[in-house]
């Protein structure tokens, strides 16, 4: 018997539907609506697609475990197609038409700033689960990704201990890159190191020949990269193609987030020192069961990256907040958020900080080895100290802005 593709798809769909069925009955009541807007197509879908998957996974798991407040969680997912206008549009739709109870959305900082005001104005709870430049201070918003102070200091510390004092920084030319470069310079200075030079590159620059020559002219002890996105991948390739990877060590605050280590061959990527909140090599039960569940639902787990895990944990953290709040009442939910909820996720403990609505996270300094991120050092529960310098939502609950970090 031959199986036509249509039959196969129908069967696959049915299996997925059964998998998604609740295992326990839900109490009476309308479902709780969870909105999500991510780039499932277009330039940024390398980040967006795995996030969309873990979003589904997290919601299914919550429902399988009885939902939230005894009610089913209904996922309303939109594809913003890497277009800022669509973020705004779908945010409005979630607020007005769908009347979402919580929204987890946004990849780039630009997309976050495009939609955050909409949610704040309409008192729709908003989670932003992506690593970013820090500084958002808004009682309606919860940020669960890492900020520069959390991740950069460990990287600088290990890098300087290993290789020496003189550092060359290459960074993406937008908010994240600019602010990260400032923090890197700050930590390097603290440890009596020097920054040879800092170069910024717009996100579409793909030729780094002149830069690689410039770096050789400066002869730094090592290079730190905060490059972002598909075009910037070329830097690592051209770096390796010229043989520089054997001569000057490379460290990065962003490498691996877009699965760069899978795109580079072991010969090219090995030895790059990176920092982040997640590696698939984390040997905890939470991570193992998460990867197993992901594999069962979507097949290949290779594409799971930090952002996808961060999103998964963000949703689980929200569910925990709801459990503590016991109702959808806004005051109760805010109180729960500010009561220090924590979960044990695939990347370790995620503990919400009441003052900043940011999360304390475990930070891993890792080395790329054979297309895997091998953990070298673990820094447990680093606090979002950069945002905390400016932001105290307990004292100033009406605050609503993104502080620019100035060191």
């Amino acid at each position: 018997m031959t199986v036509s593709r249509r039959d196969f798809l129908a069967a696959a769909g049915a299996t997925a539907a059964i998998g998604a069925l609740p295992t326990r009955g839900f109490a009476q009541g309308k479902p709780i609506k969870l909105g999500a807007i991510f780039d499932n197509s277009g330039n940024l879908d390398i980040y967006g697609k795995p996030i969309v998957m873990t979003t589904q996974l997290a919601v299914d798991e919550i429902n399988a475990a009885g939902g939230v407040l005894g009610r089913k969680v209904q996922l309303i997912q939109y594809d913003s197609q890497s277009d800022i206008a669509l973020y705004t549009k779908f945010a409005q739709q979630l607020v007005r038409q769908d009347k979402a109870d919580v929204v987890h959305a946004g990849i780039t900082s630009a997309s976050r700033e495009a939609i955050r005001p909409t949610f704040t104005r309409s008192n729709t709870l908003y989670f932003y689960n992506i690593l970013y430049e820090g500084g958002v201070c808004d009682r309606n918003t919860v940020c669960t990704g890492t900020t520069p102070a959390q991740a950069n200091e460990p990287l600088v510390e290990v890098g300087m201990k290993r290789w020496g004092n003189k550092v060359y920084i290459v960074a993406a030319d937008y908010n994240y890159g600019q602010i990260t470069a400032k923090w890197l310079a700050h930590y390097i200075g603290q440890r009596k190191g020097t920054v040879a030079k800092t170069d910024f590159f717009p996100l579409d620059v793909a030729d780094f020949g002149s830069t690689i020559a410039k770096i050789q002219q400066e002869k730094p002890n090592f290079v730190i990269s905060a490059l972002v996105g598909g075009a910037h991948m070329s830097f690592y390739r051209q770096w390796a193609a010229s043989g520089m990877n054997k001569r000057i060590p490379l460290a990065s605050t962003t490498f691996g987030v877009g699965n760069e280590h899978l795109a580079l061959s072991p010969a090219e990527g090995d030895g790059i020192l990176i920092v982040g909140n997640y590696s698939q090599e984390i040997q905890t039960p939470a991570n193992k069961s998460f990867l197993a569940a992901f594999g069962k639902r979507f097949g290949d787990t290779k594409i799971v990256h930090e952002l996808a895990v961060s999103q998964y944990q963000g949703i689980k953290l929200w569910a925990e907040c709801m459990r503590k709040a016991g109702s959808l009442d806004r005051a109760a939910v805010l109180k729960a958020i500010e009561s220090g909820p924590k979960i044990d996720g695939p990347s370790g403990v995620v503990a919400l900080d009441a003052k900043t609505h940011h999360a304390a996270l475990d930070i891993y300094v890792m080395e790329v080895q054979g297309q895997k991120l091998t953990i070298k050092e673990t820094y447990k529960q680093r606090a979002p100290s950069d945002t905390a310098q400016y932001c105290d939502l307990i004292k100033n609950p009406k605050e609503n802005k993104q502080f620019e970090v100035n060191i």
Partner: protein
Amino acid sequence: MDYAGVVVLEILYMIAFLALISAGLAIVFGMMRVINLAHGEFVMLGGYTTIACSKAGMDVYFAMLVVAPVVVAAVGLLVERLIIRWLYGRIIDTMLATWGLSLLLVGLVTLIFGTSAVSVPAPIPGYQLGSYQMGGYNLFIIGITVLLLIGMWVVLRFTRAGLIARGAMQGPDVVAALGYDPGKVYMVTFTVGAALSGLAGGVLAPLTGLLPSSGGAYIAKAFITVITGGAAVIAGTLSSAVIFCVINQLVSFASTPVIGEIAMLALAIILLRLMPQGITGRFFRSGT
């Protein structure tokens, strides 16, 4: 002194890069007056083919120099038969249809290969130039481009096919006067153009992180190079590539790559303002 050598080599590499990604578009535009906005995706397909073949254990040179051009040529042939041939003489409609095609190809490749960047390592190690470490593979690209341009020139100048092709540049009636069916000539031209795009994609694959959306990065540059160069396929592409790259790289070394890029684009405007028919429309008479 070493540094000057580094700068010169970088400039040469950039010229080769630009000429390589423009060659396919230039042939199709020069002979058929068709602007193929899916050109970038053809280049991207060449890259994906190379990577897929080399991952499957094929020799990487064979994959990039033979398999990639053949596969993309087949795609080109299909596209010409299904879409382009209905639209000859309607330059704007062709652009629109090929833009649709480019979206379609991005969607298809995303479906097949997923969105993670893929790549193959450069098969040639770096080398030492004075105290500088340089990419050896860049030299290979320069060499390939030189060979390609010489090959194109020889074919256009000295062969029967070249004569027909030069006839096609004059217009379809000239082809007909030579005793050939313009439709067939166009079909072959488009296929050859696609093969060149595939070759470019294959050869460049080891130096870039390839994504389904990578084509977009090539098309604007190739488009500007070809139009600024004017109608003559080889002389035009080469002269505008040389001018653009020298300016871009000199400014990049002196400041940043962004300012280099902006300087290059500003130069394109000035050149087109001074020479509205492209560089070769003014300085070269012959068809090659």
